[in-house]
């Protein structure tokens, strides 16, 4: 929070507003969260940059939701934080949600930090653009940072329109020196440039129309603002990466068809950075077998493919085949396993996540990430020695 004066102002504003609300009304709220110790073992030994072959970390999340003004308004805080043994960049607190919403009949007004997800795919979320990804948490970019915004939604029978104004940009966090996996060089936080002269104060803008027509969930979106993904270039003087954030104009379409046990998914984007336009498409099929072998278990098979017409894009020709096994037992045991393949080279990776409830307040997670043969030209080559097993136990409150 300290490096983010804009957010600090918002936090103070909300705390004052909340105190005001709670002194005038009885506060009706829900609060819940968890603390999660984690422990990782790197099975190829020490890392390429001399990182340790063992790491411990403590992760936590807390959520507070309160309905105000007779249920016409909602105030939410949802914060995550981590204290990592090795990586400085994984010692943080982030307000994923810190927002006030007011509901009119067809209109919702919202101000504050929010996580907004767009898209339908399991793996290749190419339409999703509102929130910055925390790459120190996860190289796939699925872990996000809360985005400060003001938004308005208008709902009708024929669909919903959302308009987002984002007055403050958040730079992408990358793993630090001791992080695993990490890039070849550190990303220099003191050498960041922007195409926009307003830099991180540029007012980013987004618009989305979404609707449901029978078995189809459809979204059309447009984003104009600082690209969340920087261009990294090695600086021969500092031996670190300099980052540059271009301005991005991106139009996206996402469609899911739900036909019985079959899900068909497609996301496409047409994007312009500077004078260059690129196209991307990603989609797939998910099929679920219910009650396999006369048990309560379900087995889902997921196949997804991503294409991008830029040759230097890491996901320009990538596929994944995954299995999702849900036991549907009292412990909600489940296993998600995926084999990720770069079709251009011979690179492949295997990932698996198992979870099982231990009791009403405890849950066990086991994550496995194995790097197979990785092509020297693939950007994941620098993570080749970072195959790992992570055990996590969450204690819920």
């Amino acid at each position, binding site marked *: 929070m300290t490096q983010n004066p804009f957010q600090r102002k918002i936090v103070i504003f909300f705390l004052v507003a909340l105190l005001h609300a709670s002194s005038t009304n009885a506060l009706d709220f829900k609060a819940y969260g968890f603390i999660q110790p984690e422990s990782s073992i790197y099975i190829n030994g020490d890392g390429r940059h001399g990182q340790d072959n063992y790491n411990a970390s403590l992760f936590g999340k807390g959520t507070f*939701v309160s309905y105000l003004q007779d249920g016409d308004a909602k105030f939410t805080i949802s914060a995550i934080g981590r204290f990592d043994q090795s990586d400085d960049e994984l010692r943080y607190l982030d307000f994923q949600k810190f927002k006030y919403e007011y509901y009119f009949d067809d209109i919702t007004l919202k101000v504050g930090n929010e996580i907004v997800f767009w898209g339908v795919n399991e793996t290749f979320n190419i339409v999703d653009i509102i929130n910055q990804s925390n790459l120190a948490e996860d190289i796939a970019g699925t872990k996000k940072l809360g985005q400060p915004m003001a938004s308005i939604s208008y709902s009708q029978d024929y669909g919903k329109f959302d308009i987002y104004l984002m007055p403050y940009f958040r730079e992408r966090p990358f793993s630090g020196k001791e992080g695993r996996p990490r890039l070849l060089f550190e990303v220099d936080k003191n050498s960041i440039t922007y195409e926009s002269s307003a830099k991180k104060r540029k007012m980013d803008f987004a618009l989305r129309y979404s609707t449901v027509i029978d078995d189809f*969930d459809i979204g059309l979106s447009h984003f104009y603002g600082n690209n969340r993904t920087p261009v990294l270039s090695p600086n021969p003087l500092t031996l670190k990466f300099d980052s540059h954030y271009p301005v991005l104009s991106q139009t996206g379409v996402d469609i899911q068809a739900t036909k019985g046990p079959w899900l068909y998914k497609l996301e496409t984007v047409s994007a312009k950075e500077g004078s260059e336009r690129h196209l991307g498409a990603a989609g797939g099929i998910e099929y679920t077998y219910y009650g396999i072998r006369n048990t309560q278990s379900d087995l889902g098979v997921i196949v997804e493919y991503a294409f991008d017409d830029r040759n230097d894009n890491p996901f320009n020709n990538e596929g994944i085949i995954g299995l999702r096994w849900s036991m549907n037992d*009292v*412990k*909600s045991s489940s296993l998600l396993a995926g084999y990720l393949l770069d079709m251009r080279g011979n690179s492949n990776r295997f990932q698996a996540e198992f979870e099982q409830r231990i009791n009403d307040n405890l849950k066990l997670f086991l994550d496995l990430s194995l790097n197979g043969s990785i092509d020297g030209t693939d950007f994941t080559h620098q993570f080749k020695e970072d195959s790992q097993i992570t055990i996590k136990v969450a204690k819920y409150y």
Partner: protein
Amino acid sequence: MKNIILVLIILIGTKLSIAESLEEKGYNIAKLSYESGRGFTDMISDQLMILIDPKGNKVTREISAKSLENLDPDDGDKTITYFETPKDVEGTVMLSHTHINEDDDQWLYLPALTRVKRISSSNKSGSFMGSEVAFEDFSAGDYRKYKWKYIGEEVYEGDLCYVLESYPIYENSGYTRRVGLTDELLRARKIDFYDRKGELLKTVFFENYNLYEDKIWMADSMKVENHQNKNATIFQWQNRKLNIGLDKKDFEKSSLMRLAD
């Protein structure tokens, strides 16, 4: 002339009622029973689910739900379910637009992923939260989902009941046959469920009936005994309120996030 028509109508009517087959009689009782439970417009309730294993170990799950009655005779109700416990799923919200003999439309908000997913609902015969209750059991009283047959009468807990057999129409149903008892107040009291192999799977007991709005009997407890795996589930409704003026817009995908974090 008018009198002749009237006589004819009465004659035909009488003849029809005499000829009412066991199937028609079963169907008519089931339809009346279903209709006696309608007219709630909308409903909110807290639900407590107790899962009991063969050794008697118990775990408890809590959810709260809203539902909206659909007056369209060819379509089902809409519900929103908010999961409170187990704590690892707290904040999960599920929206269902139910349909009578086809898959429902279902959306799930998962706080861990902070995203709304449209999910497949072909698993109507699947377990609800690891319990002995299947998704399709929540609409076990909907006469439109079955073919019916009147079997006879039987005294159950001192009350005279109709014995009705029913056969699911929905192709993905987990059952082939049900045998149920419906009392003279048209309340379902007990149903035996037979699995796809035709073997007795479970018995559901509807208990703790209360009269709502002076006209609708609703069971505030449902006990499920699985005869095959010997597990049991008790489902209890609490703080049930009917006709509170919920808006149909609250039951659309676009307003799902109003209930979520």
